[in-house]
């Protein structure tokens, strides 16, 4: 086992203590991992404050502004949830893939293809315009998931069959997906030459809380839509699959020790393709829920990089599907209220610092760091 001595022992210790690092043999305490996640967020906020300060702003005022405009009232809380819905789904998409150490960073592209598939139902059209709302929602969700899964299948197949690095291939598929959507937005489904499709009719919208305002007055003006139920349900199902089923066990085994998994007879190639497709389907569902629940049309700017934020969320949640829900709400707030922060790159920077501190802090999960008294030689 490795022992790194940070302070070189000198003959006459000026400081009678030294830091000793040793590998953890036992599992780290349960509270440590969430604590490190919180610390990472705090560090990121501090760095963000420093940058805002350098740029001549008032960090405290900015953070108060973010808190007020994301959690301050029922209305903005509802908007935060709206931003959190796609984040939950892409965060889950990344979590399941990362759990197998399958680096799907193509959630962004799968999101766009999901949006495309869902739009197809309305715009092609697959369903007649006056079909019932429940039928629209189900069909759009299925199309979104199928198209997202298809976009995940391609890199999954290439990885399983030709051992093509999935990091690069999924990322390239992101750029291709955006151009693919652009073609349809500009050339096929354009409305009057604008770079967007026509507005979907009302029965292709996901119901919102405000639709219930007739019965309960509290809900008036709240934009949170049914996608939240999709996302939470997906999180619970995914948690169950990963923690309690044989397939989930196989995924975790491949992630932890692929060689052992192979000896145990787990079909790795098949699982790569399957997990990529499930991951893609989740991201596709995120695209569908954004299109059907928020934007109500197909257009170019439907994602401020949800797919990439999903990577950080998955890591912040330590790949735990239930924790993804919490992490997504936090990032939903950051994206929602962070839009007005100057300089405008600050939210991206905060995300970056969170990610860096998280990964650095994993060191404490793998190692014990103790301060011990120097022993006289």
């Amino acid at each position, binding site marked *: 086992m490795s022992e790194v001595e940070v302070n070189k022992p000198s003959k006459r210790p000026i400081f009678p203590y030294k830091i000793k690092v040793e590998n953890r043999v036992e599992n780290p305490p349960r509270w440590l991992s969430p604590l490190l996640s919180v610390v990472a967020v705090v560090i990121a906020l501090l760095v963000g404050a420093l940058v805002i300060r350098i740029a001549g702003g008032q960090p405290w005022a900015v953070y108060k502004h973010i808190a007020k405009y994301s959690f301050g009232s029922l209305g903005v809380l509802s908007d935060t949830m709206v931003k959190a819905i796609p984040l939950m789904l892409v965060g889950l998409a990344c979590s399941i893939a990362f759990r197998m150490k399958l680096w799907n960073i193509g959630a962004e592209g799968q999101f766009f293809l999901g949006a495309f598939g869902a739009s197809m139902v309305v715009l092609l059209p697959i369903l007649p315009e006056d079909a019932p709302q429940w039928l629209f929602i189900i069909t759009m969700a299925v199309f979104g998931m199928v198209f997202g899964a298809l976009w995940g299948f391609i890199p999954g197949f290439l990885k399983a069959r030709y*051992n093509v*690095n999935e990091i690069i291939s999924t990322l390239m598929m992101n750029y291709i997906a955006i151009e693919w959507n652009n073609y349809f937005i500009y050339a096929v489904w354009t409305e009057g030459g604008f770079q967007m499709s026509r507005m979907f009719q009302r029965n292709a919208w996901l119901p919102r809380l405000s639709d219930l305002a007739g019965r309960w007055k509290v809900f008036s003006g709240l934009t949170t839509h049914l996608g939240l139920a999709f996302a939470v349900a997906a999180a619970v199902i995914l948690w169950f699959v990963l923690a309690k089923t044989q397939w989930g066990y196989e995924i975790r085994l491949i992630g932890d020790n692929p060689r052992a998994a192979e000896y145990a007879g787990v079909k790795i190639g098949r699982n790569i393709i399957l997990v990529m497709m499930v991951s893609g389907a989740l991201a596709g569902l995120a695209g569908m829920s954004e299109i059907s629940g928020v934007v109500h049309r197909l257009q170019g700017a439907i994602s401020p990089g949800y797919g*990439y934020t999903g990577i950080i969320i998955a890591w912040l949640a330590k790949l735990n599907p239930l924790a993804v829900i919490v992490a997504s709400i936090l990032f939903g707030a950051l994206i929602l209220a962070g839009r007005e922060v100057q300089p*405008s790159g600050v939210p991206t920077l905060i995300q*970056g610092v969170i990610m860096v501190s998280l990964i650095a802090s994993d060191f404490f999960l793998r190692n014990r760091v103790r301060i011990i008294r120097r022993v006289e030689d």
Partner: protein
Amino acid sequence: MDLLIVLASGVATGTVLLYATVGEIFSERSGILNLGVEGMMLLGAMTAYRFSATTGNPWIGLLVAMLAAGLISQVHAFIAITLQADQVISGLALNFLATGVSLVFGEGLTSLRDVVPQLPKLTIPLLNQIPILGKVFFTNHSIMVFIGYLFVPLAWYYINRTRPGLHLRAVGEYPAAADTLGIRVFGLRYFYVFVGGLLAGLAGATISLSISPGWFGVLTTSGQGWIAIGLVIFAQWNPIRAAFGAFTFGALRRLVLDIQGPSIILGLANPFFYNTYYGFFLKMLPYAFTVIFLVIGSREAKRKRIGTPAALGLPYIRGQRGL
């Protein structure tokens, strides 16, 4: 559409990929996978543009860009080498960090167009008289293109024929053995991640000060850092093959832009001229080709048994069994 012009601008565009790819080759040859190339390039492009604007000297901009990207690469080096974290996820983190820093400090730079001094362009006398090649490779190119020509063989020679190059390869193939021989594994890995950062910064600076001058936020690099990482695999960690791949890709990127120009190609009506919307499919091509290149690279690697550096992506922990 003059094919020679397309090829010539392909060489210019490819130069960006060239620096980034060779930089990543250095890093990966030492055993450290750095996925932060895109972010480091962006940081380089932003810093170069900013410092070229404030100092009025593009060379200072270039130098600061290299240093900035080199410094930020050390974040990844620390996490991957000293803290022994997963290199994939750490590289992604570096990407987010570098992108964030670039966006914060790049604010307001877009409006500086036309006042930022650029790197000079040159034509090499005599060599530009060579038929075809002279026009493609030696006429009216950015000085960075010519530095690139010199840099590739030097990089190849350094890696394959010198003692420090031998140490570099040893550290990436079998760090435990290298350590036994007294080669400083940790120090060298830090150093070559730094070199990778310097070159990624150089690549970014080449974009913003010369090839397509300006600062356009994340669109400045538009995925070229990722293409470079893909090219490393295609190039099988060899700078010469990397140059071949980079110039091919550069030409492809240009072709995609230029093919929409003429109304007739090869005696046929040009569909991309008559329906400009097909341009979206053209824009997919560089990314699609990267995937195809990866398939080719992976298959070839399997056949020839030349693979990745054996210790790539694995943290070296002294005293532990294995590589």
